[in-house]
């Protein structure tokens, strides 16, 4: 393996002491996600949907996770008269995080794609050491991460996306229980 031209070794990371705020990121708006998930669609029509208690029970049984809201946010994607699928925007709340995501579902109940809209951490990132708090008091702690970009890059132990994966299963159950018959 060649050792030439390795900027990585030259680019010794500059250690800067910063205290990250609880991690939060906004990736996409609902509208952007709609077009990203079903790009052929010309129109996305909001579908008012109220789940009955029986449907909510059924969704829980099918997916293994509880459906918290009786009124999921659903859009029908169309191109002319053709129905291309559904967009459902949902939230999952974990022990440490609050995630909004959009899922595209085909008319026959397949996942077309998943986009994370926003990620909020409810804990973590706090400066727990009082000496640190004093050091950074009065400063905007988010600033170091806003250099040229909006999203903080974090390297650390891997975060699990299990909640979202389970959420997508639940949205497929919503589709099967209600939308699959709604055309």
């Amino acid at each position, binding site marked *: 393996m060649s050792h030439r031209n390795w*900027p990585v070794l030259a680019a010794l990371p500059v250690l800067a002491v910063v205290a990250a705020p609880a991690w939060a990121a906004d990736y996409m708006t609902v509208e952007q996600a709609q077009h990203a998930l079903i790009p052929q669609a010309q129109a996305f029509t909001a579908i008012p949907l109220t789940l009955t208690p029986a449907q909510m029970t059924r969704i829980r049984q099918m997916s293994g996770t509880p459906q918290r809201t009786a009124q999921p946010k659903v859009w029908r994607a169309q191109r002319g008269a053709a129905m291309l699928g559904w967009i459902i925007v949902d939230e999952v709340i974990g022990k440490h995080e609050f995630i909004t995501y959009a899922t595209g579902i085909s008319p026959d109940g397949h996942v077309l794609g998943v986009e994370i809209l926003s990620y909020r951490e409810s804990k973590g990132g706090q400066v727990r050491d009082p000496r*640190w708090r004093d050091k950074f008091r009065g400063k905007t702690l988010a600033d170091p991460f806003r250099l040229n970009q909006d999203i903080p890059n974090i390297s650390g132990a891997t*975060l699990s996306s299990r909640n979202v994966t389970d959420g997508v299963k639940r949205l497929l159950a919503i589709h099967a229980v209600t939308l699959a018959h709604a055309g």
Partner: protein
Amino acid sequence: MITRCRPLLGTFVEITAPEGHVSAVDAAFAAIAHVHARMSFHQDDSDLALLRKTSAGDVVRLDAETIRVLRLALDLHGQSGGLFDVAVVGPALVRSGFLPRCDIGRLSDYRGTSADLAILDDQHVRVEKRVLVDLGGIAKGHAVDRAVDVLQGMGVPEGLVNAGGDLRAFGDRDWPVALRDADDVARISVAARNCAIASSANLLNRRRHRGQPQSPHIGAQGRAVLCDERVTVVARLCAIADAMTKVAMADMPLAQRLLATYGGHALQTPHHESHT
């Protein structure tokens, strides 16, 4: 800059690129989705499922990319004197409950180590003893490298791909990267430029099995590594950075020696006191 985030590889994958490169970002996500499909431990149609269903002495045909990752894993296995072993990790993590049992019958049937995998060509492996391979310690890094290849191949001048904490930056600029410590607090930020950074920690990810604390990181003799500190490795390739965090957690001096040949280094975590 735009940043997109999708749930892949069991974590959240972020891709950042300048405006106007959305189709390249989509293609990079597709490359990661391919790695996810082929190298998932959980999915029963992945290459890893094929591998664990293969009887001793048989040859199995795998995706060329899986072979590429296995080649690197076997190389690391040899270089690390057997410490980095994707076939020892599998049974150990199923036993401790960090990986699901899937279609696995008896764990004791899987006695093979990395030394029992013979790569025949770019698509075929002979399994000398039955193996239960998990690529959790290297596939995320490989996926990041693939995504960067795709972005650069499509003319994206700069960008960053972050697969749940294992990331790689490219282009003529510094990218600020916060390092999240083992206790979940980010205290340090580094500037990344044309390099990969991977971190591992397990202080907050432990479980008990038969009274013993377990972690998702496996060291010598298949024993869990309990490391209270974050370990961060900088390298040219993210696959190397990813894999070497696992070696570094178990044996930092060995990791430092190996990184000298693979190109990279482990970041020494400064003690908090030094900044007060």
